[in-house]
């Protein structure tokens, strides 16, 4: 028996993954459940397990390759067939093909290059100049004519002599090369930079944030929340249950309680439609090395504070280890981003599309409170809500923030509905 192991569907919008590590080599015996390779999608590192037992007969990918769901990764077999297997001649299943280039961006029809020829690889990309027709001009490649000692100097300094402009306009001299080298050194000293490669995750974050800024008419409003009651609640939970819940957990619960009253906060803007979900699914922005992930706890409205807290703990842990499954992200309607631990007073986050809203939570600040006769020191947190105006109008958002503030200042209110 010989079978192919194919790239599993990572779910959601992800259809591309980069192979990070191949864990087996041809000839290895594997059991069901053994990890064959690790692939990085835009969201997580995804281990690909073997669902077959047998010998690895062929490896169709290597580290660094980009693969799509359904692409053949390994050939695994056992018994007589495995012994007779010839890589490539195969089991009748064609090897994975590279997908054609993504279709060019739609837009105003662009004219082909002047001579009517189109690039075979990318017909609608930037027109390539046709070599034989290129006019000789000052923009053309500089003359490579050079004195022998200039060539020698360039070789010894590792300089491409074609980049050196001759000062006499005719041929490159040794002085030109030395001058060029000094200039280069200066340039490196002053304006030197390193190119940081755009990883898959960085590209995805970039695309999604740009999409959010471009497509969502967002606006924001800030409320100040007195945190005394939340502090008490946290202490009470710890002394009663021995569990430390976080303020984010309490805020998530409060969001769910308020969404009961304003169900539009359970909505996502999908396919030009507002999809108002029946439960409150809350995401939490988690900074991980070189990236940002937003694990989501579903049905916060029907879970207790302890349950919400333990789920967030587990998901945050997984996110930090880049073990978050695609099914654990990407279905929230509202996200919480808390930068309080970094001493941020208040800030305006960017909506994680297609969600309806994101809450930016600042640090604890002590501010005076006038109790009628004297000032008291109270602890406050500034909560900034950013809303998608396609779904949520100003008054509605203000009411939401005001109810959220009320629930956090008096958590007992969460029991009301």
């Amino acid at each position, binding site marked *: 028996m*010989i079978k192919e192991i194919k790239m599993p569907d990572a779910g959601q919008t992800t259809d591309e993954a980069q192979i990070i590590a191949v864990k087996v080599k041809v000839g290895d015996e594997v059991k069901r459940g053994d990890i064959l390779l690790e692939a990085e999608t835009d969201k997580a590192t995804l281990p690909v397990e073997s669902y077959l037992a047998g010998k690895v007969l062929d490896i169709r990918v290597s580290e660094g390759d980009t693969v799509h769901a359904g692409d053949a990764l390994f050939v695994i077999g056992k018994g007589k*067939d495995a012994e007779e297997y010839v890589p*490539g*001649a*195969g*089991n*009748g*299943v*064609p*090897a994975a*093909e*590279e*997908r*054609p*280039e*993504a*279709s*060019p961006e*739609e*837009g*105003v*029809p*662009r*004219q*082909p*290059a002047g*001579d*009517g*020829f*189109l*690039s*075979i*690889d*990318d*017909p*609608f990309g930037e027109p*390539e100049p*046709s070599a034989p027709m290129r006019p000789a001009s000052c923009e053309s490649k500089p003359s490579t004519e050079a004195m022998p000692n200039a060539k020698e100097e360039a070789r010894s300094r590792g300089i491409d002599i074609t980049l050196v402009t001759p000062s006499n306009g005719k041929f490159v001299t040794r002085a030109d090369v030395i001058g060029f080298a000094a200039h280069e050194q200066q340039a490196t000293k002053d304006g030197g930079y390193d190119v940081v490669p755009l990883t898959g995750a960085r590209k995805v974050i970039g695309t999604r944030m740009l999409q959010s800024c471009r497509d969502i008419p967002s606006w924001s409003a800030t409320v100040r929340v007195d945190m005394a009651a939340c502090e008490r609640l946290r202490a009470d939970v710890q002394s009663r249950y021995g569990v430390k819940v976080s303020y984010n957990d309490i805020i998530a619960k409060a969001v769910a309680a308020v969404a009961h009253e304003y169900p539009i906060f359970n909505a996502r803007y999908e396919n030009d439609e507002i999809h108002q979900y029946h439960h409150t699914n809350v995401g939490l922005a988690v900074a991980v090395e070189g990236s940002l992930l937003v694990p989501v706890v579903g049905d916060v409205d029907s879970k207790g504070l302890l349950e919400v807290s333990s789920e967030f703990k587990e998901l945050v842990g997984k996110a930090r280890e880049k073990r978050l499954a695609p099914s654990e992200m990407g279905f929230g309607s509202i996200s919480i981003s808390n930068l309080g631990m970094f001493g941020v007073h208040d800030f305006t986050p960017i909506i994680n599309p297609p969600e309806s809203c994101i809450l930016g939570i600042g640090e604890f600040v002590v501010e005076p409170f006038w109790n009628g006769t004297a000032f008291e020191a109270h602890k406050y947190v500034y909560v900034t809500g950013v809303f998608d105006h396609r779904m949520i109008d100003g008054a509605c958002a203000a009411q939401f923030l005001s109810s959220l503030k009320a629930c956090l200042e008096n958590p007992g209110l969460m029991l009301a509905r």
Partner: protein
Amino acid sequence: MNSFDLIVVGGGPGGYSIAIEGAKKGLKVALFERGKVGGTCLNVGCIPTKYLVDKAAYLVKTRSLSKDGIIDTSGRFSFANIQKQKDKAVGTLVSGTEFLLKKNGVEVVSGEAKLVSAHVITCNGAEYSSEKATVIATGSVPVMPKFPGSELAIDSSQVLALESLPRSMTIIGGGVIGLELASIFASMGTSVSIIEMLPALLPNAQPEAAKLVVKGLADLGVDIVTNARVVSCERDGLITTRYEVGGSEKSLASELVVAAVGRRPNLSGIDAKSLGIELGPKGNILVDANQRTSLEGVWAIGDVACVPQLAHAAFAEGQVALSDILGSPKPMDMSLIPSCVFTNPPYASVGMTMAQAKDAGFEPALGWFAYGSNGMAIAEGAQGRAFVVMDTKSGKTLGMSIVGDQAAELIALGEVAVSKHLTIDEWESLTIAHPSLSETVREAALDAFGRAVHKI
């Protein structure tokens, strides 16, 4: 009055071939054509599309060679020059056909013919009569769907005449014409979408084969929407096509919209009702197994009469009609007409599918063989699969479908096998040249009985 033995109306594949064959048999023949001889097939159908299919396949092949590092860059291509050369190829065939007609003594009359009675034709003000027979071979014309903005859509003939490569194209209709255009333009780099009304493409094909055709298109980047009905088209820079699928309305924006919803019989110059020529439900002229119409002395062949709108069906029908006209009828067996779809990879089939064989009371088995296990295919980088339907009781070949390079050539082997009822033992004793793609066909037939050699 100009008098002839045989008058043929329409100079497409059916018309010009029966005219030449009739002349060769000693008949005095006149052929009426309002456009160019060669008809849809030569001028705006099979031949120009095949020219484009071939060049598109070269582009795909070139990309793959460049990807494999065999050539260093893919280079550039000129769509305008492809179109020019295509017109030249068409011109060669048209003048070749004109030459054959002339050399065989067929009188070609250029103009719109009108059938006055079974044996009388008028054209350009003159009257012509046929002593023995009149053959209607007027072909078909594209059907243009009607919906708000449908005038923005162009037909397949206009697509074939494009001067520059469109960036994007929405094709209404996933029939043979739609699929071929999709494959051609997607291969060249156009972003193509197909909107099809039926739940699946190629519904009459062996399902496994149809699936491979769809995968081939998807690999080229063609976006296929099935079960969808076009509601409207609107120009706003690009053309926005709105369509209904699963109860909700969606839209697509593209530079061009192409209607490829089918072709209807061309009855121009033929007032069927007053002449007493009976028509079928699709407006086609009804004919019997000898291609006779309900009007004595009038035969009809090709697209105007038949359901599979194929040039090779018209050739065959012409032969049937001529035999009958000459008094030795050889009725038509439509079950052996092969059909091809020139996508990349192409599809070809002949005879029955598994479902058709079961309905006909056979106990069929489906054998298949992948190009991926064939030496020639691996050498050429060809991909595909051959399927053969065999009767397990008699061991005879019932049908064949091929998806893969050279499918239209390989299917000839299938036609012989199906028409001669080749048995499994005969397949086994057949020696096929090695290495060749034809080996896959034999292996597929043997596989139906578990006897394929290069298969697990």
